[in-house]
């Protein structure tokens, strides 16, 4: 969490991007100089299916205000089926977080192909705005990790 005094709330957002589509899409956004907020910090994973729910919870524990998971479009997975598993896993995880009363808009899955630099930037802009509206993550935060 980065709170600059007299400035609006700046959320910390972790984006997990699959190496083959979304990470390349993020690169393309960069190549095309498509701006998106510096709140987004990308972690590269081989496939969206590598993302364990544990990682997402971990990010929230450590003070992330939003977590977005990006992968290849269904049917385009470099590993054929990885993102289909991701989709089921994340559906259930998000549903559970929602069930526990965690703000549902702190999590998101988006499919971004290597060619969709513009979509990547737009998605990140939109998601950052959504998380900004929610304010700091308090319901799924580990107080021990909060910075004094």
């Amino acid at each position, binding site marked *: 969490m980065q709170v600059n005094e007299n400035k609006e709330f700046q959320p910390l957002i972790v984006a997990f991007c699959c190496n083959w589509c979304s990470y390349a899409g993020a690169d393309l956004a960069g190549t095309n100089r498509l701006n998106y907020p510096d709140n987004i910090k990308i972690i590269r994973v081989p496939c969206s299916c590598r993302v364990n729910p544990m990682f997402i919870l971990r990010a929230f524990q*450590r*003070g992330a205000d939003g977590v977005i998971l990006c992968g290849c479009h269904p049917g385009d997975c470099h590993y054929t089926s990885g993102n289909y598993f991701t989709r089921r896993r994340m559906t259930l995880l998000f549903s559970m977080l929602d069930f526990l009363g965690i703000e549902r808009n702190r999590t998101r899955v988006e499919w971004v192909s290597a060619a969709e630099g513009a979509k990547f930037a737009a998605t990140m802009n939109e998601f950052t705005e959504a998380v900004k509206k929610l304010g700091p993550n308090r319901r799924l935060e*580990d107080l*021990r*990790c909060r*910075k004094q």
Partner: protein
Amino acid sequence: MLKISLDKLDKLFEAITASKTLYIPVDREDGAAEYRKYKSGMKLSNALNTVRSAKDFFFPQTENLVDFKMDGKNIEVIDIRKESEDFVIFGVRACDARSFTILDKVFLAEPVDSYYKNRREHGTVVTMACTRPAETCFCGTFGIDATSPEGDAACYSDGENLFIEAHNEKGQKFIDSISALLEDGDTAKLEETRSKTREILKKLPLANLSTDSFGGDKLNEYFNSDKWGELSESCLGCGTCTFVCPTCQCYDIKDFNTGHGIKRFRCWDSCMYSDFTKMAHGNPRLTQLERFRQRFMHKLVYFPANNNGEFGCVGCGRCLSKCPISMNIVKVMKALEVK
């Protein structure tokens, strides 16, 4: 003896909270009782006991010991110890009151546990005599009189009034602090209540359970007993018995990396867990049998061996009602007992 009418209890609690933090057992929605910090309007629970014992106040489940702050390659050690606030635990039963004596033998013996000592010194234990013991009670087995609980001060109820007496200086100070609300009372009805309770205690199903077969000198008799196998085979290896037990005092020390530093904390551990006593070379107690045996041998043999015959159990009965598979110290004692 000094007394206060039971319907004026809230006044009493308000008076206590004027100077100290007060914890009392209250009923939860699910029917169980737990200690909570007193807030106006709270009602004292009539339950015999809380799910978690009163040991939490002196030996909490997790306790931060020290912090390390990391900045790049530098590490700074931060002593986070603070003087504890004065507090009162009200309504402690005789069994839990005795458990503090047992914990004291562990934590206040050299080397003294300063975290525990700090809390112990600032806490006043006000006990409450039992009137409706349950079938799971067997405090008598360990020489505890449920109608005369220990503690810094003790309370007794005759159904109308609450009588209070001090057992020591701290207890007297406590009574002094609330003396404005107290008046002298006639104890005739109280004595009647207490003797009735004593009669019930004698009739409890476990009233005849005896420690005669156990003690510090019984290591050889029981360590290799063939009973351990069948006793432990259904044990799930969970920590329920340990965590609800008022006398279990084992803990683990762990580091938690907060990202910008380390919080070193201790937390309850259970000898029933597979990683209990795990060391660099591995774990000396490899099977659940050995871990199960450790817990009961500790309470019935090792602890008395090191503490002048005092057993590591107070007969509160929590493990009897909470063990998921209903295996408990009573079943162990009965199985091992030499008749």
